[in-house]
């Protein structure tokens, strides 16, 4: 019974973690068909903001909010500075965001040094069903679910969300109907960046902040988004469920490296059969 409970908890946690780190990337990909290779560095920046704010005395929730806002703003800056000139040039966008990724890693290493920094939190553990669970991890699961629901609600019930969905489905038509495509892209990129910054902040108490931490998470996020397909929410949820389960079980039983390899192998085989990802053939939905 313990084993089942532990495994179930690990799987749910892995899925939540995947959703958390992938959702921002998926939103940007779903809208602009751009894979932001600087995604890991947005995570990293969010973690740094959180660590600095937290160690300076700010309450955790404020530090996390600051991460979301600051990284979101940075995302908007990046989009205006060069991403907006590269729409349609998919490979060039890939390369440019890769350049940004290297630049950010180098810049942070130069300014803050290569060593990691940590943020201590006082959440402790709780006993549930005979197993010891970290309260923070449980919070992460809850907060991730809330963020996913918030994203869905924003898309479904707000005017901006309607414009975003319309532009995702048919940019020309949406633009003909009056939606400002450029602003929509900017807002979406900013939101995706903000989500990612927030994810980084959520990770900070667990992993600390280090210049190369992005590299550690980015492989899983890319795989999740690619296999998810072009619908940000449904795709991320579907792919995260699959890979979270695989990664959770394999990592627990063997090692986290093997977990990633398993996820990769399954992804490659899956893409052979569904080249556009799980939601690739879906025409509507989020």
């Amino acid at each position, binding site marked *: 019974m313990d084993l089942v409970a532990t495994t179930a908890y690990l799987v749910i946690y892995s899925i939540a973690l995947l959703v958390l780190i992938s959702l921002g990337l998926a939103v940007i990909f779903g809208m602009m068909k751009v894979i932001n290779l600087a995604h890991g560095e947005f995570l990293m920046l969010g973690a740094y903001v959180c660590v600095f704010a937290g160690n300076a005395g700010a309450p955790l929730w404020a530090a996390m909010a600051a991460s979301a806002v600051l990284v979101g703003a940075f995302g908007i800056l990046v989009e205006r500075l060069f991403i907006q000139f590269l729409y349609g040039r998919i490979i060039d966008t890939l390369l440019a965001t890769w*350049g940004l990724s290297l630049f950010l890693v180098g810049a942070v290493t130069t300014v803050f040094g290569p060593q990691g920094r940590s943020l201590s939190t006082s959440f402790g553990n709780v006993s549930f069903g005979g197993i010891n669970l970290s309260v923070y991890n449980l919070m992460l699961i809850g907060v991730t679910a809330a963020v996913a629901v918030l994203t869905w609600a924003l898309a479904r019930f707000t005017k901006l969300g309607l414009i975003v969905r319309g532009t995702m489905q048919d940019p020309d038509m949406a633009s003909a109907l009056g939606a400002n495509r450029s602003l929509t892209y900017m807002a979406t990129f900013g939101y995706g960046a903000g989500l990612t910054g927030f994810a980084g902040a959520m990770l900070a108490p667990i992993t600390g902040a280090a*210049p190369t931490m992005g590299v550690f998470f980015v492989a899983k996020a890319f795989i999740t988004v690619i296999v998810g397909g072009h619908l940000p929410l449904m795709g991320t949820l579907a792919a995260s469920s699959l890979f979270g389960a695989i990664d959770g079980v394999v990592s627990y039983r063997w090692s986290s490296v093997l977990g990633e390899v398993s996820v990769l192998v399954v992804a490659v085989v899956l893409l052979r059969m569904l080249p556009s990802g799980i939601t690739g053939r879906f025409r509507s939905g989020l």
Partner: protein
Amino acid sequence: MAREFAADAATPPSWLWWLFVAALALALIAMPKFTDVSLQLDLSIIFVLALLALSMSFLWGYVGILSFGQTIFFGLGGYSYAILALNAGTTLWPFVAAICLPMIFGAVLGYFVIYGRINDIYLSVITLVITLIFEKIIRSTSGPEYVIGKVRLNGQNGIPGVPGLQLPWDSSTLSIDGVFYLAGGTALLVYVGLRLLLLTSFGRIIVGIRENETRMELLGYDSRVYKLAAFVLAAGIAALSGALYAVWGNFVAPEMFNLNQAAQVVIWVIVGGRSTLIGPVVATGLVQYFSNWLGTVSIGQVTLVLGLVLLLFVLVFPRGLLPTIAWTFDKAFSKIGGRRS
């Protein structure tokens, strides 16, 4: 506008080009007489990396596949040679195997991404992800239980004491001069070989597929077979580069698989331009020289500058430095001469 891809590859190279190749060969043969050992070592590694650049420039410029994974084969080539040579005690067949084994892996990987008709971005990102994961795998093998034969994989620290290549006729190890000739000669041979490959049916069909895969299929060509063959060939060249790297440095490390290395390969081709084979080779020299100079400052700065270079070139010089310079000269001269450019 500077031509993005070489459009005239199917025409046999002019006598000027042959002259250029002959001059390079002569310079190569003569050089060790006039240069000191440290310069020879520096040039040798540039030749080795030039091979890696050639594999990328062939795959991206002529086949049209942007794979971030050439460093996978580079690393596999180096590690295969190290492990096999240290286990076997000889070096010749491990060197050959170090080229073949990564090609097999390339065939499997290529099969999945090419026959799956995965779109361009997905292919690029998947190859990047595989690179990342390989580095992680190798780094995690620090413990004593990670052993192949009698060679410890050694994780972070890499495998030291990799034997130099032994000459088949007298079993003595290749000297620094020897490594210089081997690296330079191989790079030159591969360059000439690739250039001439573009004159063959296979080469012309590959370029046709790059230009318009749909039309080639409508004509009856199974583009997947050709792309897979080219992918495996590029993997083999990258693996050869990796094996030579191991021979040159007597050392292999996870850094061969890392992001910085992968980024450098892409940067060589972007700076050198995709429209020629020689451009990226020249760029390799330039970028290596530049980053060695930078590397003496601090680690962070190399990454930072690589990132800036990549950004700059994608935004401002998408055709590459050399083609843009050539195009600028062309425009300038035609304005002076008054003829159409």
